[in-house]
């Protein structure tokens, strides 16, 4: 059962426009998704990658972003990837949306395992995947992001 908890991030009155990432930066982020999960870069064609200090956001590609930048925005697009120290970490939100395109580093949990992981946040686990961020899936539904290291599974589900 999903837990009811307010987890909406506070919207700030003076929110600023995120910056558009350079080609290299976009390529770095999309390469991570490709290498880690086998989701081809083309899956994100038509989307622009924006960035605030530690976060990357997916937004629609548009001929000219200038006119929109005149708006005082509260939020723009979908929180896609975070920079955690020098690692890139996919958000559960983005995995829920694009995870069905993944080819690898997916962990299939039984409903009981998923339940336990959500309650305990960390469980002993053994899986045939590379260590690092994984996609948590249960009965065909992608729930989000986990971390698999040293035979344990850590939940990053909200």
């Amino acid at each position: 059962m999903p837990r009811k908890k307010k987890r909406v991030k506070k919207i700030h009155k003076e929110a600023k426009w995120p910056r558009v990432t350079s080609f290299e930066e976009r390529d770095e982020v999309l390469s991570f998704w490709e290498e880690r999960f086998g989701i081809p870069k083309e899956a994100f064609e038509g989307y622009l990658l924006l960035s605030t200090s530690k976060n990357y956001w997916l937004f629609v590609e548009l001929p000219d972003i200038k006119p929109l930048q005149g708006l005082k925005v509260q939020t723009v697009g979908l929180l896609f990837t975070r920079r955690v120290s020098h690692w890139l970490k996919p958000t559960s939100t983005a995995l829920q949306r694009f995870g069905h395109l993944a080819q690898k580093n997916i962990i299939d949990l039984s409903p009981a395992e998923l339940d336990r992981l959500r309650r305990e946040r960390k469980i002993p686990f053994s899986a045939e995947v590379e260590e690092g961020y994984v996609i948590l899936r249960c009965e065909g539904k992608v729930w989000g992001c986990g971390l698999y290291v040293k035979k344990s599974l850590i939940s990053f589900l909200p």
Partner: protein
Amino acid sequence: MLKLSEAPAYFERYRDIIPDFERFLEHLKEPLPLYFRLNELKCPDPEIVLKGLARQGVKAELVSGLPRFYRVEPRDFPLGSTEEYYLGYIYPMTTSSALPVIALEPRPGEYILDLCAAPGSKTTQMAQASQDKAVIVANDRRLDRLTALVANLKRLGVASVATTLYRGETFPFGIPFDKVLVDAPCSGEGRYRQGYEGELLYQKEGHTNLPAIQKGLLVRAFDLVKVGGIVVYSTCTFNPEENELVVDYLLRKRQAEILLCEYPLPCHPGITEWEGKILHPGLANARRFYPHETQSVGFFVAKIKRLM
């Protein structure tokens, strides 16, 4: 608070415009059916949702003519506490509420403004209709309601939306919008029925001059859309003063035309005369929807083209 027993007197002034008035009054005693919209952005395979809900004892049947809308039994099932809801596979929403976006016809690449957007049932419907590839600005003047909208965008996995917190009447110029939706704050008469008594905004906020607010929002929307662009004006009320008279005001102030539009639910032309006042004949192209004919909420929709 309007009690069900007082409804006949309240709605009496619409006797001549609401078709089959007695059946309308009878219908108000029935509860509103439950519907949801499937979010294919996150759930490409409807079977996953339908099977999941079936296991919880829920029957969901596709609504004919409205792709991705399902009618749910039992009608009091708490959809909001299901896994399918939590993961953003479904959005509970009544069928007539889908009509304004059907009129808007959002397409990939378009610039679209949703001027009164929270909590986002129509914003997310637009994002789906344009495959998450239109540039959508979703605005609302209330921060608490905008927060709910942002949560829905996240839940549904929508990327194509930027949110703003302006008073609609002062939304800034400078973006060449192809389309603007004004799903205006209204008295909500169309929602009124058993189990929903007392939610009429008129009664709640006796002094709010809704038609004045609605006119301000509609004129601004018109001035924000580019020449040749489309403004859709909608409410969930029967009151002509909040519907035809608001659009009539725009038609007198600006160069605009009301376009005909096909809808998948039974409907009636907008009225062209109210309490002795003759309105713009083009209003016959607007559409009225009634709960006893749609098994949903009463709605008014006008699809307006900016001519100059």
